[in-house]
């Protein structure tokens, strides 16, 4: 766990860099979080996915997997990887300030 400053506010990130308290998230923080992931600037397409991840998390308690994102977000899996090359679900969740999507077991 580390404390860092995002958009001028001190927040805690877990060992993998996910915001510990999702309710602290703001759009300004998303810009800083994206920069940490090498994504700068966040385009409209990025925002579409980030907002979708967040609304799914708030509705269901967990962010969707890449496969579900591809089926429901209106962005294809191929495009998702172009937007978030390091892994769409994980990276978009991080930028959206929500926990890492649960791995299915």
């Amino acid at each position: 766990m580390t404390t860092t400053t995002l958009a001028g506010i001190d927040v805690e990130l877990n060992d993998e860099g996910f915001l510990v308290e999702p309710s602290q998230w703001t759009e300004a923080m998303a810009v800083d979080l994206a920069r940490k992931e090498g994504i700068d600037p966040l385009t409209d397409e990025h925002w579409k996915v980030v907002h979708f991840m967040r609304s799914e998390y708030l509705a269901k308690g967990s962010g969707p997997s890449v496969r579900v994102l591809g089926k429901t977000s209106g962005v294809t899996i191929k495009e998702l990887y172009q937007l978030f090359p390091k892994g769409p679900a994980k990276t978009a969740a991080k930028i959206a300030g929500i926990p890492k999507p649960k791995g299915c077991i």
Partner: protein
Amino acid sequence: MRCTSIACLYAMGVPVHRIVILGGGTGGTLTANRLRKIYHPDEATITVVDQNDDHLYQPGLLFVPFGVGTIKDITRPRRTQLHRDIHYSSSGVTKVELASNTVCLTDGSDLDYDVLVIATGATLSTDETEGLSGPGWMEKVFTFYTPEGAAALAAALRDFQGGRIVVNVVDMPIKCPVAPLEFCFLADAYFRKRGIRDRVELTYVTPLDGAFTKPVCSKQLGGMLDDRGIKLVTEFNTGVVDGTGGRLIAYDESEIPFDLAVVIPVHSGATYVANSEELGDELGFIEVDEHTLQSTTSPNVFAIGDAAALSASKAGSVAHFEGEVLVENIHRFLDGQNLDASFDGHVNCFIESGSSRALLIDFNYETEPLTGHYPGSLGLPLMKESRLNHLGKLAFQWIYWHSLLPGRNLPFVTSHMPRAGKNFVAPIQKEHSR
């Protein structure tokens, strides 16, 4: 005159519960048989629907590619696994109409229910991965998750004289998440026995960030791959399977070449789920309360086994452990009582490690697989290779047909995860991600 037909009992106002179970596999069969024990035929009709009459012992598919057993050896008629006075309907399902409590069958008839149990498992969505079922499918690219695939792979492995074999999990969730790893261990032992192991390059390719989903176990299984000279490629998200060119191509455009690929396609729920309004999630699995197994949208619908969208593994042992709570809850629901919220996500899996040895893992929603013994200190060794565990895995097929499916309680085996015999040292609790 004695009233014997259900229609007659209805006409007389006698309450007869109509329980319909979709799917005559592990979960559906054991649920039907357990329900029959608590309801006399005059109290409830129990109808099981399945599209064919072949009940496959799915754990047996793992061994078929290595010439151990045939599909015939692991298949029995569904009908004969069901107790007397359980109706069996051999038909596909078109859709479920939740508003009218009706199941529409492909033979054109309808079935009305008071309680519906979804036990139609998971299906392989081969078409979701570009190229997978295209040129090279069943020639150079196989899966052992279907009877045809396992049989075809047996012939291909027999003829294999050397080269690169990749075992690829396309995406989670899949049935029996340890099976692809077991396949690697068995392949290693198989080629050693044939004396050509040095000519075979084995690679395990997974979208996960380790060999398995659970951290402690993942480390151990990863070590076992390493010990056997099996290469591990993690976080590989397969976008295309090029059967002709012999390449797995990831969405990030990285490639892994192969001479023979064993692919575990993505899984979805049964097709009719997608055609039924508000029944399932995006992948066709049924969202249920993780402790009661009751649908989150329809109180008189329950799901068991692979069909349920739970964070427990899709495995036969889970369906078995769920059965007890499910049957209790159907009973309570029909009696108007509060449900029993006691299913704990218990999973128990033997992991074949080759050369007649196996590991055993036992865990639940909250507790990682741990070392120790199961189901108590004098039991089978956990997380450790042993011949005893291998014998346990082999014996299980008999237990499956003769005890588990008929709905008998297995001696020493509880539906809740036992804590006795386990080494509870840190880290024991998984981190809550929400």
